[in-house]
């Protein structure tokens, strides 16, 4: 019975660790910046696909490389998601600060675009995108150096956009139709793809006869702890972290103190997005990778941030572990199994047995969260003292 409970708790904590690593980026983007980024899950999905690409690259290099590809995939996933997040902030979100509903709609749109992008991406599309960036940004760069740019901007900017789009689109279509299968075949397609864990992450740590802790889950727990330490150090121990905390609390005053707020916003968003990429890399160890991967986690991640208390990293940690543990203990039926077989407890056993499926456990957790937020609307760790009013 005790072994069952320990196993249940371990699995619950490991689920909590996955939730936490997903929610960590969101805790920064939503918790600190107040931006509701519905494309966060898709940034995570990009991290997972990056891991898949790195794994395929490692396969080509041989068995030795395949054993350690995950160590290269982690920073690359961070980098890819951070760069896409940076582009998202500069291109979309920057223009929508202080307008949460518009941000929500825009990022939802971006999430759909990203999902379709991984389904359709091929060489023709990449050439088209590259050509568009070259023409659009190159054209603007050249024109901005002309003395009459400010006067002609209103006309010139849409013309460059239209011309770049048309040329890039035409080039993409031409390559797609005449470039052969190699250029027109989608890289990933709509189907899920599998990432194989390195040999040293397969199997598990056995304690006794029934207890087994899978290495992959232990790795995710360690990775989560390292990410937490890294984020805590960055926010509290570096100059950029201090600027970030200042800007996220009072953007206008921070600007009046000399802080380049636009650069800080971009960095904050890139950091949160990069963490989503790491989360994506981590979840490849637990299952297959598909375009809808992010959607499965995004609701849970928002739940963690809201239940923990918006803007509180410690709240996210506790909430992730509690939600993860309760979900597993309920869903796996562990609670029903560990209760002693007394007649008086039979109704309780029946109750837990009824909720002992993944979907029913989720229903129960949602109900508990709704009840909890009625009692504590600001979450587990609300802001206290005069700070709340400032």
């Amino acid at each position, binding site marked *: 019975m005790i072994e069952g409970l320990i196993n249940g708790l371990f699995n619950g904590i490991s689920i909590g660790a996955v939730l936490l690593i997903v929610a960590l980026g969101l805790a920064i983007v939503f918790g600190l910046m107040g931006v509701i980024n519905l494309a966060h899950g898709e940034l995570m999905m990009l991290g997972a696909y990056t891991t898949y690409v790195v794994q395929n690259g490692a396969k080509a290099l041989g068995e030795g490389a395949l054993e350690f590809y995950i160590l290269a995939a982690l920073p690359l996933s961070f980098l890819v998601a951070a760069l896409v997040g940076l582009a998202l902030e500069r291109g979309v979100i920057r223009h929508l600060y202080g307008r949460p509903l518009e941000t929500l709609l825009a990022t939802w749109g971006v999430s759909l675009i990203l999902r379709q992008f991984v389904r359709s991406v091929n060489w023709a599309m990449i050439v088209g995108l590259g050509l568009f960036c070259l023409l659009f940004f190159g054209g603007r760069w050249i024109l901005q150096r002309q003395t009459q740019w400010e006067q002609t901007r209103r006309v010139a900017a849409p013309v460059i956009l239209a011309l770049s789009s048309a040329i890039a689109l035409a080039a993409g279509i031409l390559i797609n139709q005449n470039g052969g299968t190699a250029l027109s075949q989608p890289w990933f397609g709509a189907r899920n793809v599998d990432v194989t864990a390195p040999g040293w992450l397969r199997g598990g740590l056995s304690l006794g006869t029934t207890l087994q802790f899978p290495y992959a889950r232990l790795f995710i727990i360690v990775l989560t702890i390292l990410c937490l330490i890294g984020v805590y150090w960055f926010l509290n121990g570096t100059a950029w972290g201090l600027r970030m905390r200042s800007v996220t609390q009072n953007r206008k005053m921070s*600007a009046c103190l000399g802080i380049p707020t636009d650069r800080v916003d971009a960095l904050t968003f890139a950091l949160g997005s990069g963490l989503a990429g790491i989360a994506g890399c981590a979840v490849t160890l637990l299952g297959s990778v598909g375009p809808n991967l992010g959607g499965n986690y995004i609701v849970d991640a928002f739940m963690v941030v809201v239940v923990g208390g918006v803007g509180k990293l410690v709240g996210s940690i506790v909430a992730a572990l509690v939600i993860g543990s309760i979900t597993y203990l309920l869903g796996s039926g562990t609670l029903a199994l560990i209760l002693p077989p007394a007649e008086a407890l039979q109704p309780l056993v029946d109750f837990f047995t009824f909720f002992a499926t993944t979907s029913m456990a989720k229903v129960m957790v949602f109900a508990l969260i709704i009840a909890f937020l009625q009692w504590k609307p600001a979450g587990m760790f609300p802001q206290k003292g005069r700070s709340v009013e400032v």
Partner: protein
Amino acid sequence: MTRTQPASPEAPAVTAPMLKVSGLNFFYGESHILRNVDMTVPKGQMVCLIGRNGVGKTTLLNNVMGLLSPRTGDIYYEGQSVLKVSPDQRARRGIGYVPQGREIIPRLTVKENLIIGQEALGDRGQKSAGVPAEIFELFPVLETMLSRMGGDLSGGQQQQLAIARALMGRPKLLVLDEPTEGIQPSIILDIEAAVRRIIATTGISVLLVEQHLHFVRQADFYYAMQKGGIVASGPTAELSNAVIQEFLAV
């Protein structure tokens, strides 16, 4: 009422100006808030902007800081137009701002609030890891509460922190928006003394918006605002009771 010199940018221009506001017009939508405002802050001098609530004093300071953009007119800092310069760049060029309501960063400690003030130094000076002793000489109360959250301080303590934070960036021009508003009288005297000492020891220019008469009298020059325009200006020594009655009584 005794009107002093007519409003003009040249009025107190005893030395070359640190800040010059020229023909500034600002609108909120279609509401004309600032009307042809001309004002000069000479180097090393303290200029006080007076006027009743709602005449546009804070709006003018927000324009000076770049938080709002005027429809017409210009703002010159050290002889150069800063109209297209962002607030953070204005701060890094040496304009220190103590806003109305203090705007302390609530969930940073007092020490962090002070350290972040050094951002305004930009390339003008070397940042220090700690808080210089001069800051604590001016505001001794801050030394005892370095690890407390800025948002947990009292109004008076926050005001001292806001001024100290601006000084951490070693400004050439200090813009103070009603630093004594809502502060208990004993702390008002402390703040006044600190500002006097800052001017005496550093030689910086100060643009002050103030309702507290004793503090107003510390300034070298004054500008009086009414309905978004400058209606009177001159040396504070010549500030008559009639002007005070008209522009300071709330």
